[in-house]
Structures are given as structure tokens and as C-alpha cells.
């Protein structure tokens, strides 16, 4: 992502997420940042079968989870756990 030389400094940071689900057919990332849309952030499977995505996130704390073949799945590498508005357990990531 590029920013104008005269524009405001970027208030976001690119964060990489990895999901290990070698047998999964389809994995997407959902969270506050995409209004928990199950389709807007599909993850890409790498040759070693892990699923990856890079997301631009604003500074602050974000709730998120992986949808592994439609199943809401916590990130075992997450820094924290909280509940989303549907009262489901989801992961937490701080962005500084």
C-alpha cells in the first residue's frame, strides 16, 4: 500500500495470519474489520498446506476468527480471547 507524500501518515498495519488446516477445502478470515463477512477475506493455501492472508488493520484491538469449511475456529497463536456480538468465542489481535 502506498501513501501520498503529503498525506496523513498511515494508521494501519499489514498483519499476516496463518491457519493450519491441511484438510480444509475453504478457509476465510472474519472479524470486526470486515463486519464478520464470511466471503470478503478468503485465505490462500500455500504449498505446505497452511492457509495465509495479509490484512490491513487499524491501530487498536481487533476480534477475529477463521472460518474453516464454514466452522468458526479460534487462532491458537492469538494474543487473546474475547466474545463477539453473537457471544461466540473469538481471537484477539493488538495492532500498534
Amino acid at each position, binding site marked *: 500500500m502506498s501513501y501520498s507524500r503529503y498525506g496523513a*501518515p498511515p*494508521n494501519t498495519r499489514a498483519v499476516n495470519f496463518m491457519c493450519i488446516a491441511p484438510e480444509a477445502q475453504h478457509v476465510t478470515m472474519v472479524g470486526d474489520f470486515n463486519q464478520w463477512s464470511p466471503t470478503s477475506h478468503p485465505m490462500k493455501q500455500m504449498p505446505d498446506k497452511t492457509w495465509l492472508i495479509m490484512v490491513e488493520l487499524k*491501530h*487498536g*484491538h481487533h*476480534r477475529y476468527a477463521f472460518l474453516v469449511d464454514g466452522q468458526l475456529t479460534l487462532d491458537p497463536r492469538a*494474543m*487473546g*480471547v*474475547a*466474545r463477539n456480538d453473537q457471544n461466540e*468465542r473469538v481471537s*484477539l489481535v*493488538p495492532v*500498534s
Partner: protein
Amino acid sequence: MKPSVTRKLATRAKSSGRKSAPGPSGKIHPVVIYPYRQPEDYSDLKLLYQLIARLNREKDVYARPLTVIDRKTHFANEDNKSFREFRTRTVARHSDILDTWGVDTCQTWYSGLGAAFERGGPEDVYWLIPGDFNYGTKMGQEVLSRLHDLPEICQELQQDLCIGEIATDHNNSKQLIDTYGTFALLYNWFPTEAQAIREYTERPRSEFFAVRHGFLREVLRHRWFAYEQTVVMLLHAVFDNKHISRFFVGNISDLPTGRDSLASAMQQVDRTERVLKLLWKERNQPQAGWSEQYRVLEERSEQVRRTAHVIFQNLLG
């Protein structure tokens, strides 16, 4: 001089734009629990109060920090020049001091959180910071740089309680106490709630936490226990379907004040049992047949406690 923590925090606060736009989310009230036993080496406390100094400067985000000092600590160190100087030149400079008489640590929490609550408003968040940790070490500094996440999570994500979780190895006394003592007793007295708590944290006795004004108001009005109050707050949060979150703050250990001893581990489990019994009775006494159920649970509880003691004897004795 180790300025890395404060520098990192200041950079973060500026980069997030919080200084210029605190928003309608209320203030964060840092409440520091000063160590009961005065350390000979002040390096841990100096690092902690570098953070407190920075918080004290950010007046649009943080309320004036509050340090709670037990009067017994004060009187035990009346002739200690280092203590007097540190109290006057550092603690009092960067925070208000609340001198209190307390039977145990959680009573000093009660005094400190209660005093901060009386200064606060509905959108505010209260952040408990224990003073007796090894903040001077590299890992301690890493923890200090993450602690601010706890109140921020409460503010940004509208959480009622955010527990800071520390990592320890499996044979650490904290881990042993929580596995064979705290959770085993919780599963006996409050099995449903214990499962809910464990979905969030493996450290239900953590001294690192932040709590929102509304939930703090509720727990301050319940019976407050002199010890194991984090467990009690977690139980109330589950009873009342509050929003709980957990955040990893790093690897850290208590300062060596004897907490690792066998006697101390046993005492902590005994206290947990005592608190859970009282809380169970408080909630169940209005129901018919509670005393029979209590006797059954009490018998099982004794077995759990004895088993924990045997395990501690084997591993810590």
C-alpha cells in the same frame, strides 16, 4: 536507565492518535498495588514507575494513577531511607498515594479500586497493576509494554473484564496451584461456571486485570474477600453473563518473597476453598435442601484439597 518500555508505549500512544483524540470512551484509572515487602533492589519498581510517570503525563487518556501502600509496609520501613526517598520522590510524584490498613492483598485492591471508582464515571476503566513482579528483567519490560492492552481492550471492545495471562512452565508453583487447586476446587463448587472460566483463562487468580466501571460497581457491592478476589470476580462475571476477555501479557514470575514454598502453595489452596465455600453458601442458602448439598460438596472439596496438598508435597516439598 532502561527507557525502552516507556518509549515504546509513548510511540504507540502517539501513533494510534489517542493523545489527540481520546474520544468519548472515558478514562483509564491505573491502580498500583505497592509491594508488601520492600525490595532491597529498586530496579523493578523504578521500571514500573517509569511507566506510571508516562501514564501520569497522558492526562487526556489516564486519570491520575493511584498507588496503594499498606500501612504495615510503611511502618516497617519508617527508618529505611531508600523507601522514604522512593516514596517521596517517585511514587508520590507520579501518583496519588492511598495508605491503607489491609488484612491481605485483595483488601488493598478493594481500597484502591474503590477509591478510583469514586473518582470515575460510567465510561471509565480501572486497571490493576501489581507492584511485586520482576519488571526490571527483559521479560518484565516486555510485560510492562503489553499491560496497557488490558484496559484498552475493555474500552475498545466494550469488555467488562479483561484478564492478563502470564505464561509459566508446567511445574511452576502457580501452574500447579491453578491446575490441582483452583480449578479442581472450582469444578467441585461451581462446575458450570468453572468450565466457562477455563474457556477464557488458565490463570483465574491473575493479578493483572482491567475492569469496566459498571461491572466494578457491581462487584464492589458484593461481598469482597481478602484473597482470591480475581476468582470471585470471574465467577460473578459468568453468573451475570458479562463480557470477559483474556490477553497474553508474557512470561513473568513473582519476586522471590516465599510464594514458591510448599506452605504458601497449600495456604493459597486453603484460601481458595474457604472463599468458594462462602460464595457457594451465599448463593445457595435461599434454596431448600442446601445444607445437605453443602455437606456432600464439602466432603468432596476436602478430598480435592488433600490431593492438591499431596501433589505439592511431592513437587514442591
